[in-house]
């Protein structure tokens, strides 16, 4: 029953994250991303299940036009995120599953996660990016759209927070 190891200092970690983003800019000319990987995989699934539907939607087409959606840059990057996060959690002793006392999330919480994920999927698709791809990467490049997205995100978050207080005791 070891206690969960505490997290690293947020500012210093933020600077490290910024350096990772900077390396990404320097190496690839683009920023980080996450939601694009989901869109890419979704396009791949649709193309495999029903190619007709995929061709009919310009959204799926845009993810299918350059090469296999399964080995798109962002998909590989997200695989890396899974590996990196798992490694970090194991090395720091923060893996939840190793703890007996790990609180199992309630059904309500899981449902909220699912619904929240769906809303974020729709939002990220409309905005052409998520917190990492648009807000962080675009924000660092001073993109106007990224800042609009960020302001709208926090505005909605703060407004909705009192309504779902039950979820986060």
């Amino acid at each position, binding site marked *: 029953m070891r206690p969960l190891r505490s997290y690293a200092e947020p500012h210093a970690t933020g600077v490290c994250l910024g350096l990772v983003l900077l390396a990404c800019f320097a190496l690839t000319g683009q920023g980080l991303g996450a939601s694009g990987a989901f869109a890419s995989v979704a396009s791949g699934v649709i193309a495999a299940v029903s190619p007709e539907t995929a061709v009919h939607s310009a*959204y799926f087409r845009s993810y299918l036009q350059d090469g296999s959606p399964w080995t798109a840059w962002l998909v590989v990057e997200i695989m890396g995120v899974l590996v990196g996060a798992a490694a970090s*959690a194991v090395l720091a002793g923060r893996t939840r599953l190793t703890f007996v006392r790990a609180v199992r999330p309630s059904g309500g919480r899981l449902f909220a996660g699912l619904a929240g994920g769906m809303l974020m999927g729709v939002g990220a698709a409309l905005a*052409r990016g998520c917190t990492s791809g648009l807000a962080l990467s675009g924000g660092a490049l001073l993109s106007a759209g990224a800042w609009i997205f960020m302001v709208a995100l926090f505005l909605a978050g703060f407004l909705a927070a009192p309504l779902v207080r039950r979820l986060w005791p």
Partner: protein
Amino acid sequence: MNDLLIAGGIGIAFGWALECAGLGDPPKLAGQFYLRDFTVLKVMLSAMLTAMLGVFWGGRLGMLDPGALYVPETYLLPQLVGGLVFGLGFVLSGLCPGTSCVALASGRVEGAATMLGLFAGVLLVGLAFPRIEPFYRSTPHGPLTLQRLTGLPYGVVVALVTVVAVSTLAWIAKREAAQ
């Protein structure tokens, strides 16, 4: 191939940093919206400041060309609405697309639920795309940047953003010290 190696490497570093900061922890992320835990803002502002200053000074010292970097395109209304919907989802799930992967990787079931939801969300948009396409493409402004929008030089915008971000972080630190 080389490209994908870079993708994997950058991804590992990205995931590592997110996990270290504790951004795979839904109550911690949601705590931001109840002003209980400022980790999200601290990490995001620090990372953005670092990258912004890095791009500016890297460009100034000739190490990279800021003009060659891909600036996300601005679509005013879709991004405004997208941000509102996204924020709602954020506070519901306590995770965002990148951190949901981190949550799953550190053994949290919520991460998987959110990832599944995200998948469903983009699928929904893709399927309904012919109908929402006009909205999706409305109010385009191209790769609009704050310096182009305000007409101020790049360096001045960088200075303004730095001052605002650092004072926000200082205010948070002060608030936390008081408690």
